[in-house]
Structures are given as C-alpha cells and as structure tokens.
C-alpha cells in the first residue's frame, strides 16, 4: 500500500478544502512560521485514529475544528481523508479487490468522531486494524513531529522496543 492523496477540510487552519498528491517519492512541504505545516501532521495522525488531544497539540477536541480568523467565523466540522493506492504489496486479503482505500475521519463540533472506510461507516477499531495490517499507525516511528527527532535517543531502553515490534 502506498499513500496516494491526503484531503483536509475544516481541520485547524485548513478551513478551505485542500488536496495533497503524494504519488511521487519525495514531497517537500514549505511555508512561513505559523502557516499550517505541522497542522498537516496533526491532520494525518487524527485521521489515523489518534485520540489524545496532547498528541494533536490541542487542549480539547474542538480545537481541531477551524476556530475562525479575523474575517471568518468558526466552522462546525472537520473532515480528513487518507487515500491509499493498492500496489498489491502488503494488502490485507479483504481489500485485495479495491484499487483504492479511503480512510476518513469526520467530526461535528461537540460530537463524537465518525470513521469511514471507502465511504462505509465503521468503528475506530476497524480503522486501527486496517492501518495495522498495512504497517502504519499514528504512533509509528515513521511519523516524526516537530522538535521530536531526538526523542528515541532520550527514551528509556524498554520504551525503544516498540520500534522493533512495529517492524516485526
């Protein structure tokens, strides 16, 4: 499975819908301080089922939905989708027939999150299972937040074993 696209709408500063095409091997994301680059990392982790507001740099879940700006009102919904393309390696058998798998998380202000796999409503547990099958999770070593690159070095030895476990 490869990540093909990321679509964000209403999440933090991405009030306008945006779509990132990740089909090329190396994609750089640039922009001034405070422009919203790390919010993209939060959007990806949230879509993958992250439940901890601290891990999403928020104080409460409603901080994840666009809170407004000088000239715009806040909105009532955040919606993020990760689109994976099926390149026939590492695909769980139940999804072998799909050419694309879309993982979606949607949240209305003050309500619980809704999860979808290819537009079918699912539970969080199903999303986490699917992501585990394809070898990724919001806590995976392959997502490194800003300022955290040295964390694995400063961690205690027993905490480091997850790096091997994830890959096993």
């Amino acid at each position: 499975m490869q990540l093909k696209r990321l679509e964000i709408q209403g999440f933090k500063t991405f009030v306008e819908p945006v779509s990132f095409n990740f089909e090329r091997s190396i994609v750089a994301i640039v922009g001034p301080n405070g422009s919203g680059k790390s919010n993209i990392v939060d959007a990806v982790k949230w879509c993958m089922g992250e439940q901890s507001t601290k891990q999403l740099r928020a104080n409460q879940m409603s901080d994840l939905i666009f809170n407004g700006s000088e000239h715009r009102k806040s909105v009532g919904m955040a919606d993020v989708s990760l689109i994976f393309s099926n390149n026939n390696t590492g695909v769980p058998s139940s999804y072998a027939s799909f050419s694309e798998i879309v993982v979606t998380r949607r949240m209305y202000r003050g309500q619980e999150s809704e999860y979808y796999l290819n537009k079918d409503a699912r539970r969080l547990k199903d999303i986490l299972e699917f992501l585990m099958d394809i070898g990724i999770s919001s806590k995976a070593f392959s997502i490194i937040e800003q300022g955290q690159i040295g964390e694995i070095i400063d961690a205690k030895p027993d905490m480091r074993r997850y790096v091997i476990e994830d890959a096993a």
Partner: protein
Amino acid sequence: SRKLFRETFDRINENFKKVIPKLFDGGKGELILTDEQDLLESGMEIVIQPPGKRLQNISLLSGGEKALSAVALLMSVFMVRPSPFALLDEIDAPLDDSSVAKLNGLIKELAANSQFILITHNKKTIEIADVIYGITMEEPGVSRIISVKLQKEAV
C-alpha cells in the same frame, strides 16, 4: 513471537551498523538488547561512537548527533519494513550543512522503495524533492496551497 522479534532486531541492527558510518563519515553504531533471554520484554540500548571519539553514553551526544542517530535508526527500520509513508517535520533543523547533505543522500537512496513527506525550511532539503507544496496564509489565519512545483525528472 520471540523468533520474529529476534530476526527483525538482527536485520535492523545489521542495517544500523552500516548506516551510522555513512551519516557520521566514519564511527560505529550498534543496537544491543538489554535482556537477550527475555525477548518479549527486553529493552534496547543504542550505542554510538562518532569518528575519533571515545565510546560514551548517548545522552552526552550533541543535538545534531542525536538527530542523526535517530534518523539512522528510522532508516534502518525502513530498510527492513518500509511503511506506506514517512512524515518528517523539520528533522533537519538541528543539522549543519554537511549533515543535511548526508541525510538527504540517504533519503534519496531509500526513496525508491518508500515515500517521504518532508516539512522543512532548508533549501538543500527542498532541492531533493520531486514535488514542492507551498503553504501560505495570504488570507490571515487560513492555510492554502499556493503552488505545486514539480522538479525536473531526475535523469
């Protein structure tokens, strides 16, 4: 299972021993299990000896040396089990120009099998990208994509 954990550890360690001298221009690196008899609970030590230096506790490494060591581990894992993507937010911030060049060299090598999404302010890192997304707040408080630059096909 224990056998799988051991095998995966050994393969990652083999890679780690090769990647450290590449990133540090010499020196040695190794991963050590704290308890080989109990593979289901064992922790993992990381041993790094930069070129020409004495072997010391990794907590004494500099900011840049720690970042390079962490990258070496990440790439060693990737070589054994590439994940659908890697999303790295300003991992080049603590690095000097020569370390950035080695990091980027390694990313280019692995990009054949894996996907890298790099958030960066560093011009040298931008140069290795196939695609560049610019994020702007021309309308204050609202993020948009300003441009997508496709780099020329690498010949």
